[in-house]
Structures are given as C-alpha cells and as structure tokens.
C-alpha cells in the first residue's frame, strides 16, 4: 500500500501540525504538540476527560477531543503509547478542579505510562481515576475478559463520559456511568489486509488474496485466526453472533450499533454489513436505537471492519443523544 508521506520520522508531528492548522477554533496543545487539548480548557468545575494512545487510528484518539466529549489527549507515535510526561502535561492543563478521568484502551504500554502519569499527577494533588476499555470479545474468552483489548467501543465510552461530565456529573458519577456503559459494550472485527507503519515501510503482516483475519487488532497485529474470506452476510452474522453470545441481551433490548471501517473498506461495504446486522437483530427481537456507520477507529489503510453493540437503557440513551462537536464527530 502506497502512502503520501514526507520523512516518515515526522509523520505524527506533521499530522498534528496540519490538524491544529485545520481546527484552530477547537484544538490547541500544551507544552508539546503531542499533547492536544481543547482551546477552552480547563473548564472550571467540570470533570476533565483525557485519553491517549498511539497514532494511526484517526479519529481515535484525538479526534474525539471537543465539546461534549474529551478535554485532552496524549498522542503517541504510530501504534506506540505516548509517554507518562505527556500524559501529565495534558492532565495539568485540562484539570478544572473536579478531577480527571483517563479513558483508554487496555494496552500494556499505555497502562504502564498512564499509571506512571497517575502517580505524578497525584503528587500534584490532582485526583485521577482510570477507566480501561476492554471491549474486544475476540481478544480473550469471557472468563478472561479482564485481558481483552480496547478497540472502537471506546468511542461510545467517550460519548457517555463526555455527556455526563458536560452535564455536571461528579468524578464518581462520571466514572460510574462510563463503567456502566463499558459493561454493555462489545466489539468484534475482521481484517482483510494489513497496514504499513510509515517508519517500518512494510506491511505488519501478509495475508492471501482469499483470506481474512478474525479478531485483528487495531494496530495491525494478527488476529486469533486466519480463515478463508467469507461473504458480507457470513461475516456480519459471525460478528453479530460472537457479540450477542457474550453480551447476552434480552428480547426487547435497545442497542446502539456501530459498523466501523478500518481504513480502506468503503462505506458502501459497511452499509452492506449493517443491512445484515439489522436484519439479524430484528429476528432476535432487538431494536436499533441509533446506528453509526463509518470510520470511527482506523488502522491506517487496513481493509476490514468491526461491529460494536452497546446495550442501552434510558440513562444511556439520554447521554448518547446529548450533542457533541469535535473535529471528527458532530451530533446534534
């Protein structure tokens, strides 16, 4: 896969420079360009929300910094965690006196660095709480759910936490509602082609013309299994079943559904998937309250898609419907 690049070493810095030039009304940075925060931060009295992680996943992570969602983001290199110091800078800048919640994916590097940042922030009397996203059912069986990685389901967590914080929720309330949301969110995905880390210059894995990876990671790491490429309907059914088996919803439950493209898969194909998913849910007596079809968390130019279900109740619906505006996500 060919890329439009300058020196690969400057990939992230140039990307951020372009992003700040394109959205000067919404985003700025603190200390270092790799520490993105809202222009209106800190917001006094509001619980501040931060995330962080490797680059190469736009709109994840920093694309959700904005009104009704996150306050700041520590930006790592491609597929690499940001450092603890960066996280501390973001934390200091967005803290509005009501505490900070870190919401991010369950990856070793990120966990270690956010833990280091937490220790440093608490040293400065900033109260920090962590909510880890572990939504990928493909990454570990239910009995080892704690080991699961966090993928695109985090976008729903950002949305719910952001709405709760914007409406004046306390630190405890924001943490509780985000954990409740995540307890009801599951994702499963398939990859059809690999992606290329600009500095590596070659694809992360290679895969045959008629094969697919089941349960790939959003960093291009191989999935659990490699299989023959299936039809859109088969893939949709497979993902739907895997999630429902894990989430165990009741007939009559309302869901938010997200069909996420990993990068190279066109929106047309995502809607073909959505069609089948909608049909399968209807058969089980499950209704779709809101559908999100598009690119919400990518792996550069990887082809493939993931499916996320979020079981809703009235509280979740109110927060999901709450307006938001970021450079990549606008809901009215």
């Amino acid at each position, binding site marked *: 896969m060919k890329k439009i690049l300058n020196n690969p070493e400057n990939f992230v810095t140039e990307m951020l420079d372009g992003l700040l030039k394109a959205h000067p009304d919404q985003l700025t940075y603190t200390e270092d360009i790799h520490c993105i925060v809202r222009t209106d931060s800190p917001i006094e009295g509001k619980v501040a929300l931060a995330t962080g992680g490797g680059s190469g996943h736009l709109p994840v992570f920093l694309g959700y910094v904005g009104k009704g969602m996150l306050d700041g983001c520590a930006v790592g290199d491609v597929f690499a965690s940001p450092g*603890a110091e960066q996280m501390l800078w973001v934390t200091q800048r967005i803290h509005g006196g009501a505490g900070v919640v870190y919401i991010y994916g369950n990856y070793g*590097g990120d966990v270690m660095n956010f833990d280091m940042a937490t220790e440093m922030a608490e040293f400065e009397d900033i109260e920090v709480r962590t909510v880890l996203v572990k939504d990928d059912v493909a990454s570990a069986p239910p009995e080892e759910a704690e080991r699961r990685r966090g993928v695109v389901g985090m976008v729903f967590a950002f949305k719910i936490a952001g709405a709760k914080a914007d409406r004046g929720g306390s630190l405890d309330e924001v943490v509780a509602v985000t954990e409740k949301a995540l307890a009801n969110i599951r994702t499963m995905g398939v990859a059809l082609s690999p992606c290329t880390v600009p*500095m*590596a210059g070659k694809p*992360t894995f290679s895969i045959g013309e008629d094969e697919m990876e089941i349960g790939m990671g959003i960093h291009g*790491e*191989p999935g659990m299994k490699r299989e023959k490429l299936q039809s859109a309907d088969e893939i949709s059914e497979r993902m739907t079943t895997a999630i429902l088996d894990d989430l165990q919803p009741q007939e009559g439950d309302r869901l938010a559904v997200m069909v996420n493209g990993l990068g190279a898969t066109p929106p047309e194909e995502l809607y073909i998937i959505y069609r089948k998913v909608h049909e399968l849910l209807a058969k089980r007596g499950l209704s779709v309250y809101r559908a999100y079809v598009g690119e919400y968390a990518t792996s550069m130019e990887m082809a493939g898609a993931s499916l996320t279900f979020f079981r809703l109740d009235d509280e979740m619906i109110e927060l999901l419907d709450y307006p938001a505006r970021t450079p990549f996500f606008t809901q009215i």
Partner: protein
Amino acid sequence: MTTLISGQAVARALSRVSQALIEQKETLTSLDQAMGDGDMGITLTKIGNALLPYCADTAPDDLGKFLIGAGMTANRAGPSTMGTLLATALMRAGKVIKGKSELTPQDLADMFAAVDTGIQERGKAKPGDKTIVDAVHPANEAFAQAIAAGVTLAEAGAKALQAAKNGLDNVTPLRSKMGRASWVGERTKGKVDPGCAAFVVMLSAIIEPPSASYSQTI
C-alpha cells in the same frame, strides 16, 4: 582486590546497548510483527538514538542520577511496552546506586535485582507468561549466584547471558500470556518472544567487550 567499574565504563556500556538496539532494528521489528504490532525495532531505535547523545553529553558522576536521567530520556523517546520497561529498569537501577560514582560487582548484582523486580512490578507479568521477564529473571538469578560465588565479572556476565538465552528458548514453545501477543493466542507458540530477544541483545552489548577487559579499561 575488588574490581571497580568506573562511571565512564557505565556510560560506555549504555552507549553500546544503544548502538546494539539500533543495529538490531530489523530483527526486532520482524519478531514483533510476527506476534505484535511490529513497532519494537522502531521504538528501541528511537531510544537508542536518544540515549547516545545523552551518554555523550551527561557526566556520569552520580551514577544514580545518570541512570534515572537515562530512564526519563528513554520514556520520552519510546514509551511502548518495551520502552517503558527499559525506562523503568534504568530508573530502578539508578535508585539503588544513588550517589555512587563507581560500582562494585555487588552493586551490579543489586542493580540487576532491582531491574528484575522493577520490570515485574511495572508490567505485572510473572515468569512463564512469555515476556521479557523470562529472560531477565533467570539472568538476574544466575548473575547473583555467580557474584556470590566470587567468579570474575566476565564469567558472571557470561553466565547471566547464557541464562537469558536459555530463558528465551524455554518460553518459545509456550503461548504468550501478556501484552499484545496474548491476543494472538495459539499462534504465538513456537515463536521467539521479541522482548526476550531485545533483552539478550542488550545484555550481550553490556558484557561485550567481555567484562574481563572492563577492569583493564577503567
């Protein structure tokens, strides 16, 4: 007479480690592509490239401060799992020799032990999970034993390296249980853990030229 390791020797060893990480970029990247995200060579090269000028520009007077500073530099340059563990290792090693400007073999053993503990505390991996711990921990134990037995530094280093290599081999048939590789599941069996490989690279660089000659150059 007790062998004493000078600050300059420590700085040179850290430079050699940096150099080795840069040289092994492709190998480490390939290993990480097979069961991770393929960034390890890149991250460790970044750290190497940050530590080389650090070693050149920083006086190793207080070796504790020197190593803690190196750890912070490493974390800034490459905060991936391996980078963060390396940063933690440097900071923990620095802590136990705070204020010292030259080191005894026992200091080295204490540092090694701190590195082993630090990595396990930060990463929460246990021996057998198929992580860098499976190379670090046996190497630490072998080194401690050798030093306690009073062998030369060169011999102790060689024993530690052998233990690290054995540790790597021992876990290769296993399934990875921590980090990204754990999600690859069964497919990790039979593949070399990139973290173990990186540790072997680093340890080889520390004791190369063989530690016997350390005492000559100090």
